[in-house]
């Protein structure tokens, strides 16, 4: 009986694979090709011109700045949260877990609006901030805040299951051998989670650079000042400047591809190192 089962399901297997391929081809591959085709439609000159345009450069710069600030902060936060959840028992642990997931389940627009409500001109702290000359909304700090909120689950989510699975005994062993808490973290915990951490950073970074909704709400779309790459793409597109819009978009697509390649190679390495050492 049993040897027949794989035979019977082969047809089904092929159908499923074909379905997945067609789906991916239509919804992912085709748009990706379209982005690059459209970007290069008017020649390579136009393409590079769109990228070295001062507004485009400023958008790229801002995007890198936002990622450079929000990703490290979320790494620190993610490590703390994952450490607390995986290695200690405390009241309200499951509530904390759920809260970490909140940015995944809430619309990014809401995430942006929250900051407008808090720091906008009519917001709770807005008037006080304006009196003291601090601009958060329609300025870079707001963009960074919104990005942090949207991306903070990535690192924590990646680390929590990993650290829970690894348990506490390695740390206990290090402590029993006289190591301080910090040294235990550096020499035992960090090496145990490094691949997972890198994976989380990668996803966090991709989202930080590509975030549109939340950033759009708080940015104010000031050209050359508060435009990130995704916002810049939108502006160019709305101005019917398709070649330039797709040129900048192609950079984002490239980022996605690089992330994908790194992620896959990490997964390979990750899975591999797991298999060989466990």
């Amino acid at each position, binding site marked *: 009986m049993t040897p027949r089962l794989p035979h019977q399901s082969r047809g089904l297997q092929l159908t499923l694979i074909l379905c997945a391929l067609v789906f991916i081809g239509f919804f992912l591959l085709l748009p990706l090709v379209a982005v690059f085709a459209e970007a290069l439609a008017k020649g390579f000159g136009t393409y590079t011109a769109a990228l070295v345009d001062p507004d485009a450069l400023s958008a790229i710069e801002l995007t890198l700045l936002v990622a450079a600030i929000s990703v490290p902060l979320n790494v620190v936060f993610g490590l703390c949260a994952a450490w607390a959840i995986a290695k200690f028992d405390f009241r309200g642990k499951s509530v904390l877990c759920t809260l970490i997931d909140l940015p995944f389940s809430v619309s990014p627009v809401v995430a942006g609006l929250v900051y407008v409500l808090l720091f906008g001109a009519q917001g709770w702290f807005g008037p006080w901030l304006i009196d003291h000359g601090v601009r958060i909304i329609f300025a870079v700090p707001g963009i960074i805040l919104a990005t942090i909120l949207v991306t903070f689950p990535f690192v924590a989510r990646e680390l929590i299951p990993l650290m829970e699975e690894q348990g506490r005994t390695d740390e*206990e062993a*290090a*402590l029993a*051998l006289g*190591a301080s808490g910090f040294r235990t973290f550096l*020499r035992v915990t960090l090496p*145990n989670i490094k691949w997972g951490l890198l994976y989380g950073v990668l996803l966090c970074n991709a989202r930080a650079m590509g975030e549109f909704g939340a950033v759009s709400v708080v940015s104010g779309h000031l050209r050359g000042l508060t435009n990130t790459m995704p916002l810049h793409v939108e502006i160019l597109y709305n101005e019917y400047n398709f070649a330039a819009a797709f040129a900048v978009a192609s950079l984002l697509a490239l980022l996605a591809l690089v992330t994908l390649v790194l992620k896959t190679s990490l997964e390979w390495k990750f899975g591999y190192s797991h298999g060989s*050492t466990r």
Partner: protein
Amino acid sequence: MISLHNISKSFGTFAALHDIDLTVRDGEFLALLGPSGSGKTTLLRIIAGLAFPDEGQVRFNGEDVTDLPVAERKVGFVFQQYALFRHMSVLDNVGFGLSVRPRAQRPAKARIRARARELLDLVQLDGLGDRYPAQLSGGQQQRVALARALAVEPQLLLLDEPFGALDAKVRKELRRWLRQLHEQMGLTSIFVTHDQEEALELADRVVVLDRGVIEQIGTPEEVYMAPRSGFVSGFVGDCNSLPVTVSGGRAEFDGQPLDVAVERLRDGPARLDFRPHDAAVSANGHGLPLHVSGVYRRGGCWRVEGAVNGSGQIIEIDLDADQPAPRLGSQIAFSITRARVFAEEGTQ
């Protein structure tokens, strides 16, 4: 000398340990023996400083260390699954304890490596220093864990189920070797086990735990030959239990008086425990009848299984293997040569 005073610990509503008093002498090899959930591992972790009691005191040489964390107690701890650092070579694992000392007390790198090599020699793993833990067998990993714990020169060595994950042959070898090491290094060692054979073979004294309470502390001989409770006699060594009735200082089984002295028990139902080797076939046919349902060789004896009387109570007795084995389905008569009678569970 390590002493525990009135140690209690609960996890939520579950009382893991209740009012534990225990003194461990210097140089002693002590076993904490009990079934899972008896609190033995929790007790070991409290001694180590990996867990902290809700009540009570832990003292090392008279000094109160109850609130001292593990790093400051200077104990060697060997974990059940060894907890070797996967990403470090064997040599780095062994040298870890020395390499994390504060700078002022830290030996030079070369000195640490030399010391780690010495320890690997000691645990008979010379030449494997450059390997990674995943490349070693279970027995070898166990030795690395031991060498790593010994590197910080602890006075007290604590081992959590040290042989649990090993196959029978390796286990036997390692036991003997550990006992030697313990004596050679003049350590005080405490190990946790659920395997009574292991406890009896290795330990100077055995602490039998059940449901968070110490049932008995004694030498292996005392614990085996003079169990203080029904739990101890049932848990340590093979044991048969028969329901008996006590009347006038004598035990009766199924209306038949047995030649077993009963002390300190009121008349009424009780439980009689005897070991398989504390039974003999009676030549004259007098004694308890046993309907033989299974016979197999166990070393120099026949282990005979069967039901006693009509009670359906299955027991095991050992008979001399020089005699022919009883046939299956036959009935033999036996007498109990040595037994202990305990109050029924829950009554005293």
